[in-house]
């Protein structure tokens, strides 16, 4: 994407560590990306690679033992990590909102849906209870929940999973945030509902040219909606580029592994390619490049030295010593239909 668009959020070398009794868990240890106005950024990675922690760090939602120990989160030109708790409260919900993975647990079981939506409205717009309730009914209507007046008075357990996620979206969108972070918003839903929820989210965002950070491990969802993609592995961004580049010219072995492990219908395949091994224990990361034990291109250098995020071309960054080998592999005939 061209840089003529307005830069909304810039994350520089973000580091969030968890200080547990067993040692320091470096859940996020060097994450860089940018989000432009009106654009969708996809953050992709396996479970436990630090995607969600990155999202929580942006809004500073983590409590002890989690702590952001380094880096910058620059939102609209200001570093959020330097703001006071009061200033942050004004930003949460109003400027940046978040949608959680599990609509079952993200709604408070003892409060009505209407109350939970109106809570943020009353706080950020300083409006009365009645007005806020009216507005939340409107919001419920907007997210296509049938009979919004009645639903507003119901408790979360009275709604279905899809409806709960719609209510979550209504909550997140209640104050028209300019940036929405969606933390695997469709993982807990069945496939038909997934598409509806994604469409709804995108439509609402387009209304006021808002940006989206989509956190997922579902490459299909990413291919659908993202403009730019950050691939994360073991707390670090290992590759960062626009969608086309990631899907057609991946430069990191992990990205390549992810792409080749997608089941395909257009090519005859005997077996699905998998990335060998498992995600390393965050307490005992391997030395050097954290991906080296699972990487088929790994050399001795990978075991000793950790690569930094290098710019290969404008807008394409990768964290790998063996980019040339991956390029050869890709040229050999690798294609993913996007």
């Amino acid at each position, binding site marked *: 994407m061209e840089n003529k668009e307005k830069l909304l959020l810039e994350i520089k070398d973000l580091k969030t560590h968890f200080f547990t009794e067993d040692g320091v868990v470096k859940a996020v240890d060097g994450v860089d990306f940018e989000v432009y106005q009106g654009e969708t950024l996809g953050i992709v990675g396996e479970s436990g690679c630090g995607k969600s922690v990155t999202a929580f760090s942006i809004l500073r*939602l983590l409590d*002890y033992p989690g702590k952001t120990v380094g880096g910058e989160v620059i939102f609209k030109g200001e570093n959020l990590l330097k703001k006071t708790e009061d200033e942050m409260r004004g930003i949460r919900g109003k400027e940046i909102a978040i949608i959680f993975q599990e609509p079952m*647990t993200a*709604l*408070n079981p003892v409060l009505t849906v209407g109350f939970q939506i109106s809570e943020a409205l009353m*706080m950020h717009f300083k409006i009365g209870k009645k007005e806020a309730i009216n507005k939340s009914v409107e919001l419920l209507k907007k997210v296509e929940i049938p009979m919004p007046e009645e639903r507003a008075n119901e408790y979360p357990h009275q709604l279905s999973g899809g409806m709960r996620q719609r209510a979550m979206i209504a909550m997140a969108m209640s104050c028209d945030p300019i940036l929405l972070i969606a933390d695997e918003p469709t993982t807990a839903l069945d496939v038909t509902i997934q598409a509806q929820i994604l469409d709804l989210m995108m439509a609402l965002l387009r209304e006021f040219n808002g940006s989206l950070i989509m956190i997922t491990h579902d490459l299909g969802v990413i291919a659908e909606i993202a403009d730019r993609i950050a691939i994360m592995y073991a707390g670090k961004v290992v590759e960062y580029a626009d969608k086309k580049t990631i899907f057609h010219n991946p430069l990191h072995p992990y990205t390549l592994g992810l792409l080749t492990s997608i089941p395909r219908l257009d090519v005859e395949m005997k077996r699905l390619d998998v990335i060998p091994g498992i995600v390393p224990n965050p307490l005992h990361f391997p030395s050097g490049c954290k991906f080296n034990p699972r990487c088929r291109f790994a050399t001795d250098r990978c075991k000793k030295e950790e690569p930094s995020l290098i710019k290969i071309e404008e807008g394409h960054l990768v964290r790998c010593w063996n980019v040339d080998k991956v390029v050869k592999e890709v040229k050999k005939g690798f294609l993913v239909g996007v």
Partner: protein
Amino acid sequence: MNRILRKLFSNASSLVGIALLFIFIIIAILAPLIAPPLSEDPYQIPRMSWDIAPQSPGFLMSDNIRDIYTVMGIEIKWNKAICGTAEGGYDIFYGLIWGTRTAFRIGLITVAIAALIGVFIGSISAYFGGWIDEIIMRITDIFLSFPFLVAAMVLTTILGRGLDKVMIALIVFGWMGYARLIRGSILSAKEETYVMAAKALGVKDIKIIWKHLLPNTIFPVMVQGTMNIGSMVITAAALSFLGVGAPVGYADWGQMVSFARNWIIGSPGYAGQYWYAVFYPGIFIVLFVLAWNLIGDTLRDILDPRLRGEL
């Protein structure tokens, strides 16, 4: 809420508890009708005689007392000690009736304030965690290390005689259980996603505790509180029995048992001579505590998710 009420009324033991409590409430409300006060302070038990020894049920007001009332121009609305008199001629029936009000006051006020303090301290401690939690919980431990009755006794002695002092002592050493209870519940509840979701919407900490966490965690405290009303009344009675509680002649069940202290064994050859002096106040205390415990038990069964079959 309807479900809770329905269960409360469909369970035999809770029905007994509710019936007992209902009777006590009626007695407390109708006290001025059941036992009209003879002096300006209704909580002062009228004396029926100057005798040290208790007088048996049916005793009529002695002449010299009657003369005093006549001289003072006070109408003698009743003159029969239905349940006899305690040591010093204090009318037992009157003490029982007005003592019910005292019991409710002690039980409800001490438990309400102690629970309030406990919930406040415990929720702050659990929600903010870290060194705040550490300090608050160590202070709680210090308070817990005092034996409850001894600590309350010492404090009442220091503060001086009087029911308000008793209540202060009971509150000062009675909040820790609630603090620990709510802390435990909030520690687990605050890890729920909905708490983070509320935080992500910009909701203030104090509002998260009040609106999101407490409604999810307050039930165990309610059960504990209900059960504690009885034990608070018992402890207050114990303090009165030991002579550091209510002032002499105050309508308080504990004090009435204390009046019976020297007469429990009766007279030689007739052990049960003064049975009424200890029996009536004793049975009132027992029934009052029983009522609250039965209700508390049922509440616990209803609200316990394990017994409810949800876990």
